[in-house]
């Protein structure tokens, strides 16, 4: 064991680097979100709530505010696509995690590698693959045409479905891995005991496995929900700019629209949502720990 002082010195570089270049920028962006836009990019005085007001209201020529729900719908769409991604990943990911846990140690290792490998492959390229499959001259339409299902190509790309597909495809490993991690620590004797007490497969799942896996599910939910909420590449490449999500809206404020305070305010909104989901996960895992202890 090292003494406490050397432990502090050892973690200091990491804390400094991530604090200065990760946490402080968040605070500066919070300040920026309360400033006025400079037409050349960047910000200027005075401090206002303008960027936040702009999320829901449009300013008329005479300065009065008119309710404009456009941005609200973008935020709403981002939220429900992120939730749909999370739910679909859970429905698909849980059985896979369970299947992996039931295998021999060697097969477990291979399957785990297969699930986690896509995580290390460029998201840009993984998303691009779906353009090759879904576009009008893409593989899916060719296959359907060849099988005689369709005479005209189906519009598979550039809709909400393709964005959702891309999101699930990207973030599925984030759901499988934490669920697997909790299932692996599950005591098999509990399962045997429930069988001995005449539980059927459904009861076993509902009363034993599900409650004990909740921390993993909560962790997976946050790990899928947070990046899906701020996703940029999937709506951009698979939504074709028609399905504007909050991530693309933020990006636009720093490239084409040049409204930095509004972009900063939108990022604060996303960050706030992520903090809320993290707090929810903490609360769930604490509650699960208490329930297990009791």
């Amino acid at each position, binding site marked *: 064991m090292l003494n406490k002082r050397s432990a502090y010195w050892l973690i200091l570089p990491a804390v400094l680097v991530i604090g200065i*270049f*990760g946490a402080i920028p968040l605070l500066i962006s919070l300040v920026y979100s309360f400033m006025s836009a400079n037409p050349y990019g960047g910000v200027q005085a005075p401090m206002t709530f303008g960027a936040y007001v702009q999320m829901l209201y449009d300013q008329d020529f005479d300065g009065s505010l008119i309710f404009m729900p456009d941005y609200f719908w973008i935020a709403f769409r981002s939220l429900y696509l992120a939730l749909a991604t999370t739910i679909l990943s859970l429905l698909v990911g849980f059985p896979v995690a369970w*299947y992996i846990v039931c295998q021999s140690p060697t097969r477990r290792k291979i399957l785990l590698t297969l699930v986690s490998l896509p995580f290390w492959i460029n998201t840009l390229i993984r998303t691009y693959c779906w353009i090759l499959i879904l576009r009008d001259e893409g593989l899916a339409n060719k296959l359907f045409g060849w099988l005689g299902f369709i005479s005209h190509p189906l519009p598979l790309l550039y809709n909400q479905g393709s964005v959702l597909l891309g999101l699930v495809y990207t973030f599925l490993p984030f759901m499988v891995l*934490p669920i697997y991690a909790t299932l692996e620590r599950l005591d098999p004797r509990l399962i045997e005991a429930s069988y001995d007490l005449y539980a059927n497969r459904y009861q076993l799942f509902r009363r034993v496995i599900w409650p004990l896996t909740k921390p993993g599910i909560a962790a997976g939910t946050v790990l899928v929900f947070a990046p899906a909420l701020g996703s940029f590449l999937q709506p951009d490449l698979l939504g074709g700019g028609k399905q504007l999500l909050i991530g693309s809206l933020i990006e636009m404020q720093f490239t084409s629209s040049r409204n930095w305070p509004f972009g900063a305010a939108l990022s604060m909104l996303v960050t706030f949502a992520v903090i809320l989901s993290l707090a929810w996960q903490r609360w769930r895992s604490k509650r699960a720990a208490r329930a297990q202890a009791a």
Partner: protein
Amino acid sequence: MMTTAARRKIRPFDWRHNPGFGIFSLAVMSFLYLPLVILVVYSFNANRFVTVWTGFSLHWFTRVANNGDIRHAAWVSVLVGVLATICSTAIAIAAALGFERGGRFKGEAAANSLVMMPLVVPEIVTAITTLIFFSSIGFHFGVLNLVLAHTVFCVPFAMLPIQARLNTIGTAYEDAGRDLYGGEWRIFMRITLPLMVPGIMAGAILAFVTSLDDFLISFMVSSAGTTTLPVYVYGMMRLGVTPEVNAISTILLVISAALALVAFLISRPNEAGAAAGTAAAAATATT
């Protein structure tokens, strides 16, 4: 064989045996890998029109390799990747030692959450806050901006395998060294560091892959002349599906996958879970 058959008889419910789950998992694995296979196959297609197969060809790979812009972008990516890997791995080795060998100290949980922060904050937020930060302090030094931004999000990826490795080594060898009156520095150099090597290598490789794969943060932070490869490829993709995009994407795909596999193989079986599923490790760290 006999024993399993006999056990089945006594125990009609074998919870490890779930009909249908195997096929379902196979379908999910195909879902994860078939699109990548399709990309790789198309990249070897001789035809200019990507989806019309006319024959096997390496033509597009040579075209990509001879493209000056792509070569420059690749050079920037490798430079940023190597520098960010060196910085983040050095920081991560120290931090992993502090967290694993420092016992419980005040502020440990807060420091750990801070270090893990880049894993939870959505990339777009990190990207624009970094952009705002550099612009607000007037920090415009080209490649250096990219190296700093990449170092931040590479630290947790480099740290987790090292931490997992330290955890499996345990403190027994170090304690033995102390019993033999070895000084702390000598114990570190002769015992801890050599034992850490597989973890450090896995961490460094994963940090490099993370840096190489990053698009959004580089997209926001890079300036003219410091375009990284993914940012350049994104620009190509926006113009449409071309055989050149397929070829360069295949190259990036193979490099990332090969490096990640090497990292998994280096780390010992016990740590493979942590190295392979950094997300899982991060999740367990937060729970």
